[in-house]
């Protein structure tokens, strides 16, 4: 059984799924690829929306898609640096 992901890793994984799907993914696909329970996904997804990491759009067929915002891209870009900082300063215990 794999190690439980912390919140920061979960956010990274979800944002990374969106980016690797050409920055436009349907909510159901995102739920499937993010390896989270429905309840957990809704919780994290709401937080990602509130914190401005993702935005909801409508495609040409009128279906809802999710894409990254500039802040979301910035998080992905800086993730390794942030992770390094938290690990180096032993701030892992708190999320």
């Amino acid at each position, binding site marked *: 059984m794999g190690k439980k992901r912390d919140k*920061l890793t979960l956010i990274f994984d979800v944002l990374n799924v969106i980016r690797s799907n050409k920055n436009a993914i349907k909510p159901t696909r995102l739920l499937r690829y993010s390896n989270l329970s429905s309840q957990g996904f809704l919780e994290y997804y709401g937080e990602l929306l509130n*914190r401005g990491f993702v935005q909801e759009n409508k495609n040409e067929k009128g279906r809802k898609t999710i894409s990254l915002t500039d*802040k979301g891209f*910035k*998080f992905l870009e*800086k993730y390794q*640096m*942030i992770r*390094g*900082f*938290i690990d*180096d*300063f*032993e*701030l*892992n*215990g*708190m*999320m």
Partner: protein
Amino acid sequence: MIEQAPFPFSFPGFAPHPPVGLLTLEILYFIIGITLCIITFLKTKEVYNLTKHKGIFYFRQTFIFFILAYIMRSVFLAMLMINPSSASMIFMPLHDIALFLLIYFSFMALFSLTYGTLWQPNKEHYAEDNLLNGIAVALSCLVFFGRYEVIPIGLGLCLLVYSIIKIYLTKVTRKIFFTQMNVLYILLFIFWICNLVLFLQEIDFGIKIGFYAVSLVLFGIITHRVFKRLK
């Protein structure tokens, strides 16, 4: 000769006329210390805004309290320079307020440091923030009004022992018991307590230089590591 007015703590090193050497030491300590704390605080702003990580929050909060403590310390000293007799009705309340806030901010810095970096509870802990504030205010009142200067030392020892037990209990499975950062945080904690106590006491100039120098080196190491990680 001007008679020294009663004061919450005796401060013979500064009144009635502070020696130039001591004054220079205090100014240098203030400038270098506050600069290192401000740099660390500002440098971690972006990572905190991106993550809202609680550990980073307490790490930054520690440094904002160190900054405020440095400011109060300099205000307190400046008041003594302006009015060494401490007898003026205008300056006396400012002295007292600055000293009280210096003690309070020092306690808060130490609480944030131990809580955020050494203890690290996993759950949401907004209630504890208020609790920490309440304890800091109560302890500051005891030190300030009761003149119990032994409290910072006693509290420091208690927190330190508890932190070490906590590290042992939570990280017992690791190969390395105390990491480099654990040691750095503990040393910073000890030296801040010592600085606070020494500030309130008349001590040898040489000892003071030694303690100030080690404190600045510890702050310098942390700032350097922050820069290295967040360049």
